[in-house]
């Protein structure tokens, strides 16, 4: 699999580390609501279709990326910096 890093260009997947589901939002740190936190820490969606994931380009620019990937075909439709994604409100 090849991921096209917005900084480094296309690179082999071996340079990247999977960092989890990017569709979750971290609860307010002050919140002590256990259900919200449980859902954030433990629940992961695993749809057999397009999904958003965090990947760290640890073998390159060391940026976290948000990769939109179809889990059933491995076809990647977009890769953006995680910072930009978070700034845009997780969209």
């Amino acid at each position, binding site marked *: *699999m*090849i991921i096209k890093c917005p900084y480094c260009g*296309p690179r*082999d*997947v071996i340079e990247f*580390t999977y*960092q989890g589901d*990017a569709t979750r939002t*971290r*609860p307010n*740190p*002050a*919140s*002590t609501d*256990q259900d919200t*936190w449980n859902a*954030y*820490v*433990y629940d992961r969606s695993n749809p057999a279709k397009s999904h958003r994931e*965090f990947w*760290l380009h*640890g073998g390159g620019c*060391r*940026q*976290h990326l948000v990769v939109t990937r179809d889990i059933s*075909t*491995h076809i990647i439709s977009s890769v953006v*910096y*995680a*910072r930009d994604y*978070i*700034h845009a409100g997780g969209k």
Partner: protein
Amino acid sequence: MTSWRLPNGGRIERAKSVGFTFDGKVYRGHQGDTLASALLASGITLFGRSFKYHRPRGVLAAGSDEPNALVTIISGDVREPNVRATELEIYDGLIVQSQNRFPSLEHDLMAVNQLAGPLLSAGFYYKTFMGPAIGPLKSTRFWMFCEKFIRRAAGLGKAGTVADPDRYERMNAFCDVLVVGSGPAGLIAAEAAAATGARVIVAEERPVAGGSLLASGETFDGRNPAVWAREKVDALASLPNVRFLTRTSVWGYYDGNILTAVEHVSDHKPNRTRGQPRQRHWVIRTGKTILATGAFERPIVFPGNDCPGVMLADAVRRFAVEYGVGAGKNVTFFTNNDSAYDAARALSMAGVNISAIIDVRSDVSGTCNDIANVIGAELLLGSAVTGTHAGKTLSSITVQHFNAETGRISGAPREIKTDCLGVSGGWSPAIHLASQAGGKPEWDEDLQAFLAPEANQNWVVTGSAAGYMDTVSVLSDAATKGSANSRLILPTIEASMLDSSPAPIFEIEPAGKSQKAFVDFQHDVTASDIRLAYREGFHSVEHLKRYTTLGMATDQGKTSNVPGLAIMADIRGISIPEAGTTRFRAPFTPVSMGVIAGERYGDLRPHRLTPMHDWHIANGAKTYEAGLWHRPMIYGSPGETIEQAYTREARAVRESVGIVDVSTLGKIDIQGPDAAEFLDRVYTNMFSTLPVGKARYGLMLREDGIVFDDGTTWRLTETQFLMTTTTANAGPVMQHLEYYLDCVWPDLRVHLTSVTDVWAGAAISGPKSRAVLETCVTGTKVDNTTLPFMGIVHGRIDDIPVMVCRLSFSGEIAYEVYTGAGYGTQLWEALIAAGKQFNIIPYGLEALGTLRIEKGHVTGAEIDGRTTAHDLHLDWMLSKKKAYVGSAMINRAGLKDEHRLSLVGLISLDNQSINGGSHIVSDKTPREPADSFGHVTAACYSPALGKYIGLALVKHGTSMIGKRAFATDLLRDKHGAVEIVSHHMFDKDGSRMHG
């Protein structure tokens, strides 16, 4: 079968003679011969014994599809088994052995397996060796008894037992277009692609490019196509944007248009130049792939079809035209399509007698009739071969009338003398790579074969791999596939009007008893095995494959796939596409493990060395691996045991002073206006309140509240911190911090840089450590006021700049002295020199561990991904004034449960050592299974206490203090009484380090 060297012809270099050894006997061939062609030229037709039945087998094919002629290459003690004789290029001094024969190829005792045929049919292993023990001759116990005999009797070549001495390498390649195959389609597609300026790689598995052109009977612009091909290859290879790889088999197709190939760089050479690999593993990332992989001829399944002398028709042709070898002196052909006629003509032109062509079709074209006439071969239409007569090699065949509509055999058998039968059952496009890439192959009724699925990545299939069987359409398709706007001028082809579309006949099945008819030659799967599988309920192709092992041998069913499916479809009364096909998997051809490992030979991982590494080695350190690091374990003296050495080292620290290399600690530079705020969020305790020039011990949790890592962080300026992590967790902590900055708090202005390698660190510990520093540090005082506990000062030692922080892991008064890594050895030697008068000694990880166990400090053994701060008695570090990573989850009931394991100390009561990993039990004597209520995380001999001690995680730990238990290690046969004590086993109030 009397195979022989033809007086002329072939691309072998007849002037160059090559000597090689086969089964202990020396033979000679020519430069350019394969082992198969050279042995056939020497009259050898028996190459090996078959997998299960030990039947004599010869050569079936002429290339990578060969299922039978597998040999083992012997080079000293090294054996490389299962090499296809049809691909192995001979060289002077080559030594090969035939396989699966005992004691010799000619006289094989295991051939009695043939008599036991019914016993060894499909499912034999499952039926005989699985399930409950209901008698002495059933079940896995019986298997264990029989295994040794069966392994010897059934199988392929034997692997060697010595290490592979060869060199292998990886090569990363990038191109716009990868062309797999260099036959007519590959060459034209490559030329068209190269003309657009694209970077092109062409990979050809054979030593010579040209594919089918090398044995073609057509003319290209009035010339021999082999000559045309050679000129085309030379022209292409000279282009700056084309790389031409021969002896390179593309074997895997992966996501992202990554293909893998193995280049046989020097397998064909008697000697290698220095540094030259035997094989190279190419990983090719391509924009577009053009699969010009050609097609494989397939056999017809008929009784007795596996004896030496029965070959594929095209293989007979290729041996004659390419290698100048007649596979027989009196050759016959058996076919269901026109291509065998072309082969017969080529053979006749090479000077071989063709006595008959047997065709299942009752009517053939005028061209076919003409060919038979011209070459003087008897044409037997509407006929089929129904048996063979052979000792070790073919002597005659039985032919009967055959009705292609009904599949029925009739009439009196007729015996025809022949020593070689060329068989053609039609052609299967080589769609293996496309199938690997994904999608379901599609059945082509006209070709009676599967075609590549629709492309799911940027690839195209061209030439006969795409189902084009005549050269004119192959070339025009290839030009278009190479480049949509190709303006190549294609050669004018002169070819016979032959039609490769076969009659849909895959098997000749006489009524009543007949010889075995083989489908998969390499795994000895017969047509009756497929019928048996059907009768026993294994109908789907996936079940058929696994039950009979059809297509699962090293040739991956290249010749057996379609005939096997056809037979199953026929039994089930459905069409072949309805029966379906299995997906091809990598590798396309067998690949050695060595070439996949590539340059990662011997050491699989890099060695990470501290700046003082050479000093440690020169001064007697025994090292061990801690992750990638190589760290001193002890600095032993002659005659000392490991325990004696670390005890001596640890005692020296408690009594005077010792020095240990701590350069391996993870170090992260944390800078920016929000650095303090960031630390407050990732650590459980406060860092924004830490003054400049001070360090603080910090604890990090995971989001789920479990302890993640600990370490000290030093405030160097208002906006710059130096974080230290445990050695093992340096990478994960960096990743953890980066995650929060990138994905959770991107607005914080903080930068992280790994500076582990920037600093060399030496910790000096012991009551005399301050005195040592006082004698060597300049530019700063190091007294208790200037440098209190957790204080940091900057100064110089031996004129090099140093940073000193007063910290303690050993429980003694201690300092970590840091300098630039390039000065590490100089600093270390200066400290040793300064400590000489205090008898300073270097100590290793064992002593470091002993000192920390005595103090009850935790490391990775206790921070094991399951423990909480509370379990480790670190709850005092959990700030109640702020939220931090993990704070929301730490109060969950499960993490506060009183039954949780928590940290305690252990003291051995029988004066015996305690094994790490032992379970804590209450039974006085060893019992299996025992009720464990904890486990030992670390243990050592404590020189300070004069006892064997340990740390353990124990249920209700704190309330167990003062109680007696047993540490039991059933694996290492150790069981001893221990007393559970507080984890602070030495200097509980910490007075020593604050002094």
